[in-house]
């Protein structure tokens, strides 16, 4: 008898458990992370997976609206930049509590800044606030008011607070007590991270409903893009960011409503010539690469429209410069991509003594123009681009050898031996502000790829870029900064140290079960408004 009762109970339980699990999963958004988050401590974030967790769980004082690209008040109801960017004062939103019920006050902001600026913590987020020698001081002037002072002015100070997730000074849960829409509920290393809705989250919708709408978000760790897409098609996950054009087209053919193209993103593909003094290159090749007319001629001989149409299946746009049109404020709209004109390229080369001799371009000394273009192996789109550039340059008599190298060898050549001639790679711009590109444009920087670590600028135009970048970084008037940075973009367009080829579109996949999704070009493209995303019920009979 007892055995029969136990069996009946077990059967009932077995029948009920999946129902409960399904019920829980009904309002659970799922998508994939490429790797395990390295940390859950918001001030130590320096990888994409950890950034996703910080974005979804962290409450910030000011948020950059990913759609409008404007600053929006979050935990701070208002703020004011003072003393030319040396200080910023905040008035905080009252009556807020962390996910564990601990009240939020200006002491928490002060504590967060202390953690962030602790030299022992080596916080990447904190580094962006280090404007000069000296301490960052926080002066609490009330329960909901404080002022933060910096040793030197910081241009675009407000945007830095978009990355600062406020942690509680008093909670025993430390960084697990959050002010964002979700909180970390479970982490299975290498498998998944489960985020549950923060019941204390302060935002409400226009009807007065407390946000977020979702009960939970499950982030599965999945590195393989093909498997990720397979799972999306099966309905196991709901969002995919950063699709490549091939996967996007396949999805668009199967389910047009789920493939979302948000237009030109902040990611570009570009090539550059090695101009480093330490490069072990023949003198005549170094002379070509240092010639503005040679670089411009190569740029004008490349058919960007074809690259867009064939290599990117029309899911890209010809690139103009270091900032794409996706960056609404900083993009220099006066500039257009270098035109495709092989004849003009030949005329430009002729001014430098180059001549076309039986289909072979030769320099003034009679050297045939031939160089190699290195790129990373295994990237099909770049391999396609290399083959297309090869054919384009053959039209003006240049022999191009496309060489694919494993990433380690490529970086070794780019940063240590400088043993390469030209390189084709992509640039992911995550920061709207030009200060995020200082390490690329300053001639003394190690990331000044075409000629890094210069003691003094090698050319007058690099000296001008140095001066303009420093001027924009110290100016506080946004229009003045824009004027400086517009000029930088113009110089880069004229001198072509980087030959910008295409700006990739922001491609994503959004399940038809997800309501309120509006993919944008800025990261995180599909879940930037996670608190307002909703899942519609599954049709009866389906999973």
């Amino acid at each position, binding site marked *: 008898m007892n055995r029969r009762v136990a069996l009946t109970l077990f059967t009932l339980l077995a029948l009920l458990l999946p129902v409960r699990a399904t019920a829980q999963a009904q309002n659970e958004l799922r998508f994939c992370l490429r790797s395990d988050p390295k940390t859950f401590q918001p001030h130590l974030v320096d990888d994409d997976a950890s950034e996703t967790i910080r974005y979804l769980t962290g409450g910030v004082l000011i948020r950059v609206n990913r759609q409008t690209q404007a600053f929006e008040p979050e935990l701070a109801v208002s703020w004011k930049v003072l003393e030319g960017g040396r200080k910023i004062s905040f008035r905080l939103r009252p009556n807020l509590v962390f996910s564990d019920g601990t009240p939020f006050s200006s002491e928490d902001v002060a504590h967060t800044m202390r953690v962030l600026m602790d030299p022992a913590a080596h916080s990447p987020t904190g580094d962006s606030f280090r404007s000069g020698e000296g301490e960052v001081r926080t002066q609490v002037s009330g329960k909901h008011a404080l002022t933060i002072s910096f040793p030197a002015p910081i241009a675009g100070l407000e945007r830095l607070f978009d990355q600062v997730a406020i942690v509680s000074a008093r909670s025993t849960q430390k960084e697990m007590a959050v002010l964002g829409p979700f909180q970390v509920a479970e982490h299975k290393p290498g498998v998944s991270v489960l985020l549950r809705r923060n019941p204390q989250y302060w935002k409400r919708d226009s009807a007065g409903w407390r946000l977020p709408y979702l009960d939970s978000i499950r982030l599965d760790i999945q590195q393989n893009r*093909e498997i990720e897409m397979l799972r999306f098609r099966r309905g196991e996950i709901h969002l995919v960011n950063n699709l490549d054009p*091939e996967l996007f087209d*396949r999805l668009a053919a199967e389910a047009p409503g789920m493939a979302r193209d948000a237009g030109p993103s902040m990611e570009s593909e570009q090539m550059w010539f090695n101009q480093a003094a330490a490069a072990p290159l023949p003198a005549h090749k170094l002379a070509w690469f240092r010639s503005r007319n040679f670089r411009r001629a190569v740029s004008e001989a490349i058919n960007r429209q*074809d690259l867009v*149409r*064939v*290599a990117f299946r029309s899911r890209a746009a010809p690139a103009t410069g270091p900032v794409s049109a996706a960056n609404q404020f900083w993009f220099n709209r006066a500039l257009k991509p270098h035109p495709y004109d092989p004849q003009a390229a030949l005329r430009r080369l002729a001014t430098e003594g180059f001549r076309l001799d039986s289909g072979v371009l030769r320099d003034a000394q009679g050297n045939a123009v*031939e*160089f*190699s273009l*290195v790129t990373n*192996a*295994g990237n099909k789109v770049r*391999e*396609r681009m*290399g*083959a*297309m550039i*090869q*054919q384009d340059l053959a039209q003006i008599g240049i022999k191009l*050898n*496309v*060489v*694919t*190298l*494993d990433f*380690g*060898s490529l970086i*070794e050549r780019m940063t240590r031996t400088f*043993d*390469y*001639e030209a390189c084709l790679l992509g640039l992911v711009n995550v920061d709207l502000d030009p200060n995020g590109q200082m390490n690329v444009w300053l001639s003394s920087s190690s990331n000044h790829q075409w000629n890094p670590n210069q003691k003094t600028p090698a050319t007058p135009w690099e000296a001008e870029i140095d001066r303009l970048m420093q001027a924009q970084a110290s100016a506080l008037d946004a229009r003045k900064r824009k004027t400086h940075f517009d000029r930088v973009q113009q110089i880069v367009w004229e001198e072509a140290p980087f030959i910008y080829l295409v700006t990739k579109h922001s491609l994503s996949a959004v399940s038809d079960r997800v309501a309120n999704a509006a993919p944008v070009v800025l990261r995180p493209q599909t879940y930037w408004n996670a608190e307002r995303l909703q899942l519609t019920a599954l049709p009866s009979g389906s999973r």
Partner: protein
Amino acid sequence: MRLVQRMALSILVVVYLAALLADFIAPAHYSRQFRDTPEASPSVQFLLGTDDLGRDRFSRLLYGSRVSLVLAPAAALLSTLIAGLVGGVAGFVGRWPERLAMRGSDLFLSLPWLFLLLTVRALLPLNTEPEVSVAITFALLGLLGWVTSARVVIAGAGALRASDLVLQARATGCYGLRLITRHVLPNLKPVLLAQFWIAIPVFILSEANLGVLGLGVAEPLPSWGGLLRELEHLTGVFAQPWRLAPVGLLVLVVSCFHIVFSQDEVAA
């Protein structure tokens, strides 16, 4: 020569001639991009359609066959010769040479050759011609790919050493080189031939895999390995089954080789 054998030989002759005369037969150069018609379906102009850059697949298959049909068998021959020499001697002599060869092959198999190949690529000058790069790749494959075959040959030669055939030969005063050339090698021939045929498709596929690491046939030069890389996406293959043409040709050529030479071996 039987009918099947003659047919196989004819097919091989046709394939080799087509590959060698690609300059005259191919409708377009292998690198020419018809950018207005990428991924086109088969037509009168493009017999096997075009690839994602608009290059004629039929022309690329012809030129690719030239590379693979010459270099893959050459590499397979090199590796089989080394395997025959090392495995044959060690297996037939036995005792410590056999033990040394077996331990040596264990060690050889456990070494991270991938890193050696990456180093070789890193050391090559960047402006190396695609033809030189592909020759180096296949030479490396031949020099590194003999170990597994050698172990099979050691086993075969070991069995021969203890066989009545060899005992009888020795009893009649047949020793040394004469014993090896007259009795041992002819009896090892089936093993060596089998290893040779196995090595050809393995080397073609290895070349395709090395392409992912940047070693192998450089663009725009085609090879069977490079053409097989297009089969990575299974869904694309279902939509465009003509992409399977390189696989079909590979199977056909290897089968034909097998038929032609195995018939010889039976006759011998």
